[in-house]
């Protein structure tokens, strides 16, 4: 009997202690979460480093997980293509015939350009270097729009570099880890890109709004903008190089001008990180790129084919 009452009393003592520990652990973790959120908001570098260390650690696992998904996607895509093979062949033949004419035209223009530049002693634009990376995670979600790519500081990727695919702008490098980087997409609400209307050279800011159609802000009131106009980067601010294609005007009303990006987000599986040596508003680079790992990209990347 005495043994039993001793057991009860020990259990009676341990249980409240355990409950209090659990409660304090819960409150402690809630406070820690809130503190981390505040530090993240304040962009304290140590929080960012913790985040990138976790990303570097977890990305190889995600990369392995992504293989079956990619294989399945490839299979579905191949089956789809089989159904439209004849039509696609016909389109490609027509496209090829048109392009052969354009190649001839381009050759002539190239020679003409070279002659004119030589006569004017023209100083050419700085050529870019690039790194091509695979997209390992589409971390989008409903409220945050970014991608993780498998290139980081080791591949000389730096914060602020423009990211494109097939010549069209995707976004910019927001965070750089050792082996991975985060790309802030142009549709994210934190994205503000200096752009201009290609046909009129009217400048504006392309502001992301977390939808697939970012909007133009600060466009001059008298701008004769219309649906289908091409939008390109203006190069102002020194973050993005000028002339990168962004999208076309999808809707132009008195109050809002929305833009349809050229990039097909659903088919995006690779990205090209451009280095024009621009630092803009961002802090100076931590690493200097070497030409051994990077190759010059021809200026035709600026223009979407």
């Amino acid at each position, binding site marked *: 009997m005495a043994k039993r009452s001793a057991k009860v009393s020990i259990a009676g003592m341990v249980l409240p202690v355990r409950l209090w520990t*659990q409660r304090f*652990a*819960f409150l402690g*973790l*809630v406070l*820690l*979460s*809130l*503190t*981390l*959120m505040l*530090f*993240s*908001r304040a962009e304290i570098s140590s*929080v960012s480093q*913790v*985040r*990138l260390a*976790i*990303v570097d650690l*977890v990305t190889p*696992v*995600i990369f392995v*997980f*992504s293989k079956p*998904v990619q294989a*399945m*996607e490839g299979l*579905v895509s191949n089956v789809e293509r089989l159904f439209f093979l004849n039509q696609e062949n016909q389109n490609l033949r027509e496209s090829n015939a048109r392009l052969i004419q354009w190649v001839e035209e381009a050759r002539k223009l190239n020679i003409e350009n070279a002659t004119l530049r030589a006569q004017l002693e023209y100083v050419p634009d700085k050529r870019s270097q690039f790194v091509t990376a695979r*997209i390992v*995670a*589409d*971390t*989008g*979600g*409903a*409220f*945050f*729009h*970014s*991608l*993780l790519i498998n290139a980081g500081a080791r591949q000389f990727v730096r914060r602020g570099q423009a990211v494109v695919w097939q010549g069209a702008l995707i976004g910019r490098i*927001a*965070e750089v880890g050792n082996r991975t980087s*985060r790309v*802030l997409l142009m549709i994210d*609400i*934190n994205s503000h890109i200096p752009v201009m209307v290609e046909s009129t050279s009217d400048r504006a800011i392309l502001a992301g*709004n*977390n*939808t697939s159609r970012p909007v133009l802000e600060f466009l001059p009131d008298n701008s004769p903008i219309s649906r289908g106009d091409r939008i390109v980067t203006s190069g102002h601010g020194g973050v993005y190089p000028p002339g990168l294609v962004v999208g076309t005007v999808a809707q132009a009303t008195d109050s809002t001008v929305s833009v349809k990006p050229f990039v097909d987000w*659903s088919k*995006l*599986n690779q990205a090209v990180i451009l280095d024009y040596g621009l630092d803009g508003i961002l802090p100076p680079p931590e690493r200097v790129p070497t030409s051994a790992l990077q190759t010059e990209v021809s200026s035709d990347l600026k223009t979407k084919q």
Partner: protein
Amino acid sequence: MNFLSDFAWLIRYLQSAIPIVITLFFVLLGQLQMPLQYLSDIITGFAVISIYYWVMFRPELMPIIFVFFLGIIQDSLSGAPLGLNSLVYLFIHALVYNQRRFIVGKSFWLFWGGFAIVLVLAVFCTWCLASIVRGSYLAPEAAVIGLIMTIIMFPAIVWLLGNTQRRFIGSARFY
């Protein structure tokens, strides 16, 4: 004494890690690039289903410290401010842990309805916190679509989790 009994402690340890591994799997799977729109949002919702299920039936296998770290991993990968999803997951854990006695042993519809309420609250909290942190109103449409699809998918995921529990972990322990 057979060979397996020597490793009984290891088997028990691995069994107890299954709920966390499954939830982590859903968190990581939700970050993959999916061919269909909103699919990532729906899969991320599966992590909430997993937390809800295990806290409901085996809370000792889903401790709050792991829930916190799952949120940290999700925040790190998704680009959300560190701590946002941790806070939401901790909220889900506390809510389910305190209300489980009203749901465990009752009908599946109540179990499902309970999850719908928890998910709506979780998505609302995420939306509020994200809007506050980002300093602007964020369009909730994509989150609402993800939410509805996750609620629809709930029975299938619960069936999967239930089978996993029966096969590898054992029956529920009610407190």
